[in-house]
Structures are given as C-alpha cells and as structure tokens.
C-alpha cells in the first residue's frame, strides 16, 4: 500500500494552501535565508571581481619594482609608500631594458605641484614616466599624442593632461598646443587622456603626465617611485622578476634593496583574502538558513499539534506511520523548495539591483553558493521536519480523535 508521489504532492499542496499564514511565514524565512546567501556571496565575489579587474587593468604580464626590501613576500606596504634605503634611479631602469624577456619599461616618479594656465590654477598630481606607460597601463588618449619616445634622461617640456584638468584649466578653449605652467616651469600640452584611463590608486583624469627626467627636475629628486616592467609573455614573468632582482642587486653593491612583485602575486593575495571573505559572508548567511530550518521545525511542530485530529484520521483511514512521516516531510520539502526558488529569485533580483547601483561591482552569485544555498535549504527543511513528522506518526489515536 503506497500512496503515489503525485498524490502526496497534491495532498501536501492542499495542506500548504489550507494554512496560508503558516505557509507564507515559512516561505519568507527560507527565501530570506537563501536570498541572503546569494546576495552576500555575490557581494564577496563582486568585490573580488572588482579588485581583480582593477589589477588586471594595471597592465598585462606586469612586474613592479619598489625601492626598499622586506623579507616577507608579496605586497610590501612600507615599500609602496616609498621607504627608500637606496634610491631606484633612471640608470637602473635603463639597464633593465637590456633583458630580452622585457617588452616595455616605464619608470615612475610622482609628486604634486601647482598647475596654471592664464588665470586658472590648481594643485595637481604629476606622474613622471616614459612613452611606454600608455601601453603598459592600457590607457587611452582622447586627443593629441602621448609622451615622445626619447631617451629616458631627456627632460622634454611636454605634458599629457587628464580630461578633468583640461576642463578646469582650459574650459572651452583648445588645450593641445597650449603651454601650461607646472611650478616654475612651462610645459606644452601634447595630449589629453581618454575617459578609460582610470585604474587603482590613480585617476588619470585628474593627473598630468610628463617625461620622467622632467619630473625629476621638477621635484628635484634623482630617485624613482617605482619601475613598471611588462614581460613579453606570461611564462617569462618569473624569470623577469628574478633577473631584475639579480641585476639591481649587482648594481647596488650586492645588496638586495628592492622589492619586486608580480601582478599575479598581488592578484593571488587579494584573491585569497576576498575569497576567504566570500566564504565567511556565505557562512554567516548559511547560519540564517539553518535558523530558517529551525523555524520550519517549530512551525511544523505547531502544525502537527494543530492537525492532530487530521493526522490520526489518516491513520484511522489506513495510513501507516511511514506514510504519515512521508506526508509531513513532503510538506516541509515543498516549503523548502518553494522557499529556495523564491529566495533565488529575490537574491538574483538583489544582485541585479546592486549591479545597477554599482556598475563597477560584478555582483554575480557564484554557482557553488547557489547550489549550496539550495542544498542547505532542502536539507534543513528535511532534517528539521523529521522530528515533527515522527511526532505526528506517534500521536495517541484515542486522544487525537477526541481532538485533545
């Protein structure tokens, strides 16, 4: 004697419809749990995707040299802010170009200075670099030319300005060909940066780029802030890193006093941190799913006590204990399934809203999180309904039929 699956589903569906408040409450609990998992992991993954994209936008096959060395591997915050026991120089950069595995090199010098054109002036960040910077950083020009491909030590008085600087200094006037003043020196504007030239830490719309030798003169320093190196291939990155360390060590009297990081290493570090963050928030949201499961158990226990007479009627009509358990479990599993589906829809809707509000954040829930959320909701629905189902199956017949 076995009730067919379709009959069990039909019966359970009728029971769910018969108690709408209870059903809606349980659906709400389960769907919020699933939606929380979907949205929080999507946020975690979005943050990871955002950082990855930003670092990828730094360039391809990138190796970055910082002055200063720490024994720890990976990103060195001290080196990044420029603790410089020994300066990195233009000669160092020049020597590195001899490595055949290196495609491009862009030495970097940075500073801030007052820029003015006619009566307009403002404080601007200035990057001193070479013609290769444009290609290494994958930036785009809106107008004119980038820095000329001359010797690194040639201080040509030219500059490329960000679009916002152009608007502020020149307003509606043409900027290319005009001379602006940076501190006490004059530079001719030869190009305007395009709108795509934005990446982590630097907003090129707000920056003026000049030849590195000019920047050294302007800021009166022989040292470099860092050297950006683009390896020819991805497989060459490690050898470029090692040879850069060896060359600079040799040039610096046998002392390793630079930190060389690869884009992959930085990405891997962030990937690890943000990956852990995603798992953590996913786990927290998972707890809410378990709480939803406990709610299902409580509500099902109340439901069983409310439906004592009905359950024992089923027994009187010939349903064995196992069948009663199947009916109660099927109700709970249907609730969990519908809750998971609604939660998924809500979660995806939330992710869509996040992406609309923050277009740079690729907030897509990872497949593992979606599958885990569904599995946990179904599993918690099942496990937490076992107790009420067993209780229902063991109800005292005589008391139940008297409605006690």
């Amino acid at each position: 004697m076995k009730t067919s699956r379709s009959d069990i589903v039909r019966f359970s569906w009728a029971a769910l419809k018969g108690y709408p408040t209870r059903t809606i409450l349980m659906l709400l609990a389960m769907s919020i749990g699933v939606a929380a998992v979907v949205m929080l992991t999507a946020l975690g993954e979005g943050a990871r995707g955002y950082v990855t994209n930003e670092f990828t936008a730094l360039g391809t096959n990138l190796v970055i040299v910082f002055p200063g060395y720490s024994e720890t591997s990976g990103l060195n915050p001290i080196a990044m802010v420029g603790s410089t026991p020994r300066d990195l120089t233009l000669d160092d950069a020049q020597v590195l170009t001899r490595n055949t595995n290196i495609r491009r090199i862009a030495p970097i010098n940075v500073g801030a200075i007052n820029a003015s054109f006619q009566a307009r002036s403002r404080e601007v960040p200035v990057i001193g670099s070479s013609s290769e910077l444009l290609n290494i950083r994958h930036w785009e020009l809106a107008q004119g030319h980038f820095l000329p491909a001359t010797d690194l030590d040639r201080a040509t008085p030219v500059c490329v300005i960000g679009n916002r600087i152009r608007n502020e200094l020149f307003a509606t006037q043409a900027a290319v060909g005009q001379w602006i003043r940076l501190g006490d020196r004059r530079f001719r504007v030869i190009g305007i940066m395009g709108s795509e030239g934005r990446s982590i830490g630097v907003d090129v719309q707000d920056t003026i780029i000049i030849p590195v030798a000019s920047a050294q003169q302007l800021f009166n320093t022989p040292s470099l802030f860092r050297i950006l190196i683009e390896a020819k291939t991805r497989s060459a990155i490690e050898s470029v890193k090692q040879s850069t360390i060896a060359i600079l060590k040799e040039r610096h009297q046998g002392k390793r006093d630079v930190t060389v990081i690869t884009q992959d290493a930085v990405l891997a570090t962030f990937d690890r941190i943000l990956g852990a963050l995603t798992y953590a928030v996913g786990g927290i949201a998972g707890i809410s799913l378990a709480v939803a499961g406990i709610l299902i158990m409580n509500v099902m226990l109340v439901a069983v006590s409310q439906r004592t007479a009905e359950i024992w009627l089923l027994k009187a009509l010939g349903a064995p204990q196992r069948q009663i358990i199947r009916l109660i479990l099927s109700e709970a599993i249907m609730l969990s399934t519908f809750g998971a589906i609604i939660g998924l829809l809500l979660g995806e809707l939330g992710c869509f809203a996040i992406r609309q509000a923050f277009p740079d954040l690729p907030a897509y829930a990872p497949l593992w999180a979606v599958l885990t959320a569904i599995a946990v909701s179904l599993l918690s629905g099942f496990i937490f309904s076992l107790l009420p189902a067993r209780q229902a199956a063991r109800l005292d017949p005589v008391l139940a039929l008297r409605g006690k």
Partner: protein
Amino acid sequence: MIELINIHRNFLVGEQTVHALDDINLSVQAGEYISIMGPSGSGKSTLLNLIGLLDSATEGTYLLNRQDVTALPDALRAATRSKTIGFVFQAFHLISRLTAAENIELPLVLAGTAPEQRHPLVNKAVSEMDLTDRAHHTPEQLSGGQRQRVAIARATIMQPAILLADEPTGNLDQKSGQDVINILEQLNRQGITVIIVTHDSKIGQRATRQLKMVDGRIESDQNLSQSSASR
C-alpha cells in the same frame, strides 16, 4: 469474524491504573448489527477503537477473521484497517480544506489506488449518498447530515467488512440522525457488519444485538433480532 478473548485495556492516569476494558469476551459474526450502550466512561469508545485496531489491548487476544491481530506491527494494522474497517465519528472528522468528493476519495488515495480507478468509485459513492450537487463543496458548506453522509461514504469507499460508528448521530438533528441510521442499516442489509456506539436508546434498540457496558465490562449482551425485525 471478530473474536475478543479476555481483553483488558488499562490506562495509567498519574500513578493510578484505570481499567477501561476489563476482561471483555465478545464474538461478532459477519453481517451483525450491534449497538453498544452504556454511561460515559464505561469503555464503549475504547472497545470500538480496539475493534478498529486504533488501539491495542493490554492483555488478551483479538482475532479478526481468525487471524490474531492483537500485536500486529503498525504497517499491517494500517493495511488491515484500510481493507477491513470503516469508521464513522460523531465529529465527522472531515478535512476542512478538501471538498466532499476529495474527503470521500482519501482512503483510496492512501491505499495507492490509481486515479482512473478512484474516480468512478467516488462518483458512485457521491451518488449513493445523494451528494451529487454537493460533491465539490467543502465541509463547512455542508449541513451536519450531509457531512455525516460524506463521512459514511468515506468509511465505505474501500468496501470494508466492518463499519464502526461512534455516536454517529450525536451532532445531528433528529431528521438527519434518522437519515444516517437508515443509511447504516441499509449498509448492514448489504452485508456489512455494523457496530454503533450510542447513548440514544431508540437507536440502540434498532440493532439486532445490544451490548450494555458498565465500568469497562459487558454487563449484558442481548439479542434484539425479533424486536428489531418489526422496525
């Protein structure tokens, strides 16, 4: 058909043992029409539940169709109930969210009968109980008499050999109660063994055999076939 031998049913109430059934010996033949009467707490409903395999004896032996069903495992008790016994309760015990037809269909659903086999049986039962125009109404849209007719249809849809009715007219007006008794008697004439628990002596007198219970014991077992023949 039904053989109860030295049946005891004890309940523990606090630290006291209550003897709900005390040494019951009863033999019921197929096709009998029995009423069980007695004051409240005399053990009528307990006896009915025990016969209906909803409850188990503390001591004694219960033979149903010569098979010992005293200590059947749950699944077999359920199967036996489904095939052999129908119940009619005073409070109807209809499921409020299901229609009359769906309530009647329920034992067939639980027995795993295929829908194409169920529907003709349900239609026939609905028609026999004069519920055709009420088949798709929920219990709250039915009168008391109609509800009890739905309950009787549900109890007999599996064509049981035994029909147990616990105060089937208790919640009905006189006219509806009369109709229900007429239906039960008609079912008895068709060969079903009918056992009714009732407080109503008029209904009790209509049976062919009357048991009177006091304090968990059968005080009298009276054959009324001659007097009821004139009903």
